[in-house]
């Protein structure tokens, strides 16, 4: 380490979103030279807990893996267990699952656009986006009664049906969402406030992204053409038409454009599902104390943050023998670390937020000058302001 370099530990409370993770930054002046991620502050032993609970109890554990992708985890859990149990969810259930998954994607992506705008100090856009996000939150609430944790799934199908009487209303709400998102797509490509802070920031090439096994919108923003919905279709995704959005930009701007593009696609998919919803039952029977026969399955699911992988092994018991969950954020950390290298301290919040990490927010961070043993602290809000001031 040269005498020009400093170590800057950031976290476990870190500068984007609301959960803990820690990054040790080596900086040379304003430039980040190296990044060492440290996760695990939020490790709650869910996989161990699942081994001690029945399949129905686990429905509610998987839904609580994450607040934003609650439906993604639960749906993937259901389809993975169903595969081993030999249960086929009825077509109508799969369409409803697609509908919920895409609504969740819309709300998550809009939330992210708001957060990203906030990180670069563009709070007007933040308020606009979050106002419009309320439309999809209302829609989710109308269907499930909840704003998060919809509890829509059960093993064998879904727990609530969609009522045809409400479809015109749903269509109207989706139209508003589509229209507003197109408006934001226009803003993102023309507004100087965004372009100045997002274009060319946090760049990672396609080759590096592939090498580091990045997933989801983060990978697609570097031009990696991989989307589980198309490449390993699950639920009814092979029947619902949509485009996979990629962008070769590789920077934060590309992340914004990919997520906005995906939101527009999702609106279209939701409208398609409403128009083509098959008739029939919404669930197969699964007894709460049913034993699942011996076997194993790998469940792939495109959550809003990317490829979500569950691995399930049954030994013929009422509880799983092993249930493994890999959430998309862990897959995106190696590429995130690479993205931060060579960037400025002022860009840390937006690059971190750029992958839409599912862990957390900086409340406080410590800057350490190793040579002089000098320590100073800064909280997350200060770091955000530091970034905004730095770009003035």
């Amino acid at each position, binding site marked *: 380490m040269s005498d020009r370099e400093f170590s800057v530990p950031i976290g476990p409370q870190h500068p984007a979103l609301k959960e803990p993770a820690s990054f040790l930054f080596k900086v040379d002046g304003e430039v980040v030279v190296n990044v060492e991620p440290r996760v*695990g502050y939020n*490790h709650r032993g869910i996989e161990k807990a699942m081994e*001690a609970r029945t399949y129905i109890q686990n429905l509610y554990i998987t839904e609580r893996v994450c607040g934003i992708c609650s439906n993604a985890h639960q749906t993937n859990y259901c389809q993975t267990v169903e595969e081993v149990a030999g249960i086929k969810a009825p077509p109508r259930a799969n369409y409803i699952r697609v509908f919920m998954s895409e609504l969740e994607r819309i709300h998550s992506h809009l939330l992210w656009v708001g957060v990203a705008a906030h990180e670069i100090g563009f709070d007007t856009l933040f308020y606009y986006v979050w106002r419009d996000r309320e439309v999809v939150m209302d829609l989710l609430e109308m269907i499930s009664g909840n704003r998060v944790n919809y509890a829509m799934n059960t093993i064998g199908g879904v727990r609530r049906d969609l009522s045809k009487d409400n479809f015109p209303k749903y269509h109207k709400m989706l139209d508003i969402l589509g229209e507003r998102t197109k408006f934001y797509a226009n803003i993102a490509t023309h507004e100087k406030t965004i372009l100045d802070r997002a274009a060319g920031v946090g760049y990672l090439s396609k080759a590096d992204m592939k090498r580091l096994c990045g997933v989801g919108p983060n990978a697609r923003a570097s031009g990696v053409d*991989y989307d589980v919905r198309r490449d*390993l279709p699950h639920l009814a995704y092979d029947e619902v038409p949509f485009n996979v959005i990629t962008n070769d930009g590789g920077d934060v701007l590309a992340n914004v454009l990919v997520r906005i593009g995906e939101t527009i696609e999702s609106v279209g998919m939701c409208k398609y599902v409403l128009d083509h919803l098959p008739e029939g039952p919404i669930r197969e029977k699964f007894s709460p104390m049913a034993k699942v026969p011996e076997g194993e399955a*790998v469940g792939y699911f495109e959550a809003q943050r990317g490829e979500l992988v569950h*691995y399930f092994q049954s030994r013929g018991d009422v509880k799983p023998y092993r249930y493994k969950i*890999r959430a998309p954020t*862990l*897959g995106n950390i190696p590429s995130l670390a690479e993205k931060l290298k060579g960037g400025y301290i002022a860009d840390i919040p937006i690059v971190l937020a750029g992958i839409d990490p599912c862990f957390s927010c900086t409340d406080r961070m410590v800057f350490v000058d190793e040579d002089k043993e000098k320590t100073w602290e800064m909280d997350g809000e200060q770091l955000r302001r530091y970034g905004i001031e730095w770009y003035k």
Partner: protein
Amino acid sequence: MPVLDENVKVVERLTEAIGKENVLETKTPRARRAFIRIKVEKLREAVTYLKEKEGITHLSTITGLDLGEEREIVYHFGAKNLALSVKVRVPASDPKVPSITDIINGATLYEREVHDLVGVYPEGHPDPKRLLLSEDWPEGVHPLLKTWDVNSLRKRVDGKEW
């Protein structure tokens, strides 16, 4: 449809590449899914083959399982129309696998996670530090092993009854 038997073909080609005697078990339960269990000595060769000849470079994750006498490590690869799981088993008395991080860079965190939770050490990993467990977590306690349950873990780690 050609796409639907691609899983069988990839397993056949991989078997041929590393030698039949090194493949212990194969399964293709449905379209787009394949499981193959190989000898642990051939792991790096198999992963290199998948990367260079099949273009399967995306490692989704690594799962570790406690099978009593043995530990099973499952490498999940995701590709267009194929989710391939490559398995190896190592004895519980000597739980070590060769690291594949130098072949597939994205494996780095997953190998550290498996070491933390199931105690299988990735030999040759560039930075085999703890990933998930805290610094004060006792050495040699791997919580996903079946020998531990919530009560015994609590007693061992905190020194308290549940």
